[in-house]
C-alpha cells in the first residue's frame, strides 16, 4: 500500500533503521549566506514538546525559550505558524458557511494534516471534493511571507528562505509538492522536525535551559488561542466553529469550550448550532480511526464538518516529535500526548486573544493585502487542489481535484505526462 508519510513508523522504530530525512545542513547553509533573508515559523505544538528534549517534563510550555533559541541560531525573523492557523480558521469557517449555503459539497473535511490529505488521496479519492481547499497553515505562511511580507519589507522574494519547524514528516513531503508554490518560488523551502531543531540547538552550543523568554516578531507572530489548539486533535473544528458562530450571529459564543470536542478518544461527534440549524461535526485522529469514520461516510451517513488528523493525538503525537529511546519504560502510548495537548489548551486559556477573527494582524492582512476571505488573492495563494492517487504507491490516477473555493485556473497544472487510464478505470492488478 502507499505510504502517507505520517512518520509514525519512525517514532516506533527502536533503532535508527527508520528516521526522518534531515535537512539541517541546508538550513545552516541558508543561515550562513549573507544574501539570504531567513524567516522561521514554528508550529503550535513545538512550544509544548521541544522542552522534553532538554529535560523538561512532558507538557512544559517553552515558547519564550524556543523563540530565543531561534534568534540565537541566526534566523532573521521568528514567526509563529499559529498566525496562519488563525487565517486558516477564517478561510475554513467561510468555506463551511458557503457549503452550508449549498455551494460546495458537505461534509467539509479539514485539510491541515498533510498525512491525512495524502491518505484521502490514496484511499478515499471520491471525497476529494469534500476536502477543504485550504492549504495547511505552514504553506499559507510560506506563501504570504514571499508575497505580503516581502512587499511590506521591500525584500526580493527570491532572497527569502522560509524554514518551518514542524512536528511532522508529512510536512516535509507536502513542502515538496509541486502545487505548493508558484513558478518563482516554493512556499516553504525547508521543513525541520522538532527533533532536528533540538539537534541544531545542541550543535550551536546553546544552553537551552538558561535562555531568557522572548516574544515572537510582529506582525506574523501574533496569534490567538484558536491558533494554538490547532496542534491537538479537535482543535481545528473548535476554532473554526468559534469563528463561524461569530460570522453568522455577530455575537461571540458564550461557551467557548466544547468539552466533548477535545480529548483523546479516537473518534468523536457532536452537534453544534450554526445558521439556525444543528450541524453535526465529527473528529478522528490516527488514520485507523479516520478509516472508520470515512467508511461511515461512504455508507451514506450524514455529517456537516469533519476534522481528521493523521497522527494519534494530532500534531502533539506527530512523526517528528521527540522520541524517548533512552528512557527505561519506553512505550508508545497516548499518555504523553495527552499531557502535551493539555499544555496547548493551557496556552489557549491563558491568551487574552482567543478567537481567530479578533487577531489584529489577521484583520490587517485582509485589509492591506488579501481583500476578503475566499477572495481571488487568497484563493490563489492560500488554497490548493488534490490528486487522486490510488492505493498503490507511485501512481497518479489522472486529473486533479479542487472543489469550488480553490478551483483557480492558474493553480491547476497541465495534465500531460500523468498516468491516465484509457477507460478512466484503473486495473489495479496490472499496476502490481
Amino acid at each position, binding site marked *: 500500500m502507499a505510504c*502517507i508519510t*505520517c512518520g*509514525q*513508523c519512525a517514532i*516506533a522504530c527502536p533503532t535508527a533503521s527508520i528516521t526522518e530525512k534531515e535537512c539541517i545542513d541546508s538550513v545552516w547553509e541558508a543561515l550562513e549566506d549573507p544574501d539570504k533573508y531567513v524567516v522561521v515559523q514554528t508550529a503550535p505544538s513545538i512550544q509544548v514538546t521541544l522542552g522534553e528534549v532538554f529535560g523538561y517534563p512532558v507538557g512544559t510550555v517553552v515558547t519564550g525559550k524556543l523563540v530565543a533559541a531561534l534568534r540565537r541560531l541566526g534566523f532573521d525573523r521568528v514567526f509563529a505558524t499559529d498566525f496562519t492557523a488563525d487565517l486558516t480558521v477564517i478561510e475554513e469557517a467561510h468555506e463551511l458557511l458557503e457549503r452550508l449555503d449549498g455551494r460546495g459539497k458537505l461534509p467539509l473535511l479539514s485539510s491541515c494534516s498533510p498525512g491525512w490529505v495524502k491518505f484521502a488521496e490514496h484511499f478515499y479519492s471520491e471525497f476529494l471534493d469534500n476536502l477543504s481547499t485550504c492549504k495547511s497553515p505552514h504553506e499559507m505562511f510560506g506563501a504570504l511571507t514571499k508575497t505580503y511580507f516581502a512587499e511590506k519589507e521591500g525584500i526580493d522574494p527570491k532572497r527569502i528562505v522560509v524554514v518551518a519547524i514542524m512536528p511532522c514528516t508529512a510536512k516535509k513531503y507536502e513542502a*515538496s509538492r509541486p502545487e505548493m508554490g508558484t513558478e518563482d518560488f516554493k512556499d516553504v523551502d525547508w521543513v525541520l522536525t522538532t527533533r532536528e531543531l533540538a539537534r541544531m540547538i545542541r550543535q550551536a552550543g546553546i544552553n537551552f535551559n538558561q535562555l531568557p523568554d522572548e516574544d515572537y516578531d510582529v506582525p506574523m507572530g501574533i496569534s490567538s488561542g484558536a491558533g494554538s489548539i490547532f496542534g491537538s486533535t479537535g482543535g481545528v473544528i473548535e476554532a473554526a466553529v468559534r469563528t463561524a458562530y461569530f460570522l453568522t450571529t455577530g455575537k461571540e459564543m458564550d461557551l467557548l469550550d466544547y468539552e466533548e470536542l477535545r480529548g483523546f478518544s479516537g473518534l468523536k461527534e457532536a452537534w453544534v448550532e450554526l445558521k439556525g440549524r444543528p450541524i453535526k461535526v465529527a473528529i478522528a485522529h*490516527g488514520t485507523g480511526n479516520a478509516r472508520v469514520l470515512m467508511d461511515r461516510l461512504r455508507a451514506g451517513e450524514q455529517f456537516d464538518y469533519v476534522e481528521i488528523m493523521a497522527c*494519534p493525538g494530532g500534531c502533539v503525537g506527530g512523526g517528528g516529535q521527540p522520541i524517548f529511546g533512552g528512557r527505561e519504560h519506553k512505550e508508545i502510548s497516548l499518555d504523553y500526548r495527552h499531557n502535551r495537548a493539555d499544555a496547548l489548551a493551557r496556552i489557549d486559556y491563558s491568551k487574552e486573544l482567543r478567537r481567530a477573527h479578533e487577531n489584529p494582524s489577521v484583520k490587517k492582512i485582509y485589509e492591506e493585502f488579501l481583500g476578503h476571505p475566499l477572495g481571488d488573492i487568497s484563493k490563489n495563494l492560500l488554497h490548493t487542489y488534490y490528486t487522486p492517487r490510488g492505493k498503490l504507491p507511485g501512481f497518479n490516477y489522472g486529473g486533479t481535484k479542487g472543489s469550488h473555493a480553490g478551483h483557480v485556473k492558474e493553480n491547476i497544472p497541465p495534465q500531460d505526462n500523468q498516468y491516465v487510464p484509457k477507460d478512466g478505470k484503473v486495473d489495479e492488478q496490472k499496476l502490481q
Partner: protein
Amino acid sequence: MDKIKLNIDGKEVEADKGMNVLEAARQAGIEIPSLCYLRHINEIGSCRVCLVEVEIKGTKTLQASCVYPATEGLVVYTSSPRVRRVRRTMVELLLSDHHRECTTCIRNLNCELQNIADNLGIRNIKFTGEMKSLPVQNKNSFIVRDYNKCIKCRRCEAICSKVQEVNVYSAINRAYDTSLPPPSCRICPRWPA
C-alpha cells in the same frame, strides 16, 4: 477486574487477570528489559530480550515475558544467572548483524538497542558472521530507511497496520534474510508521485 497472585523474584505480586508477565512485573516495580514489545500494538515476542525463567512444577523454562500470560501461583525469576546469560546472548546476536556506528548515528544516545546493550554491559561481541551491507534508501523527501540497522522487531509494521491502518510494511523472507521493505522500494520508483 479479577486479580491473581504470582511470585516474581521471591516477591508475592498481585496482577490483573489477562496480563502478561512483563506487565505484571513492571506494575510491581520490577523492570524487565524489552525491545519489540509495544503494549496493545506489538505483542509478538520476536526479540527475546525480555526472557525470564518460569517455574512450573519444579521445572524451569525460559520464556518471553511479554507474551507469557501471568497466571495464579506462577513462579518467575527475572534475573537469575541463566536469564542474565541468555538475555545477553540474545542482545549480542542482535548486535552481531547491526551496523554499530553509534557515534555518527542519528539516534545516538536515544536508541533503545544501545540503551539495552549498555544496561547489560556488553563489551565485546563474540559472533562474527556475515554482516549485511545494503544501500541506505533516501530517495524521498521525508524518510530515510537503513536496513543495516533493522532488528526485525516489526514495530514499524505494527504501528502502520494496526494504528494507522495504512499497511505499508510487510515482512518478506525468513530468518536472517527477513526484511521489512518500504518506505523505499515500493515507494521510491516515481517518488514523490
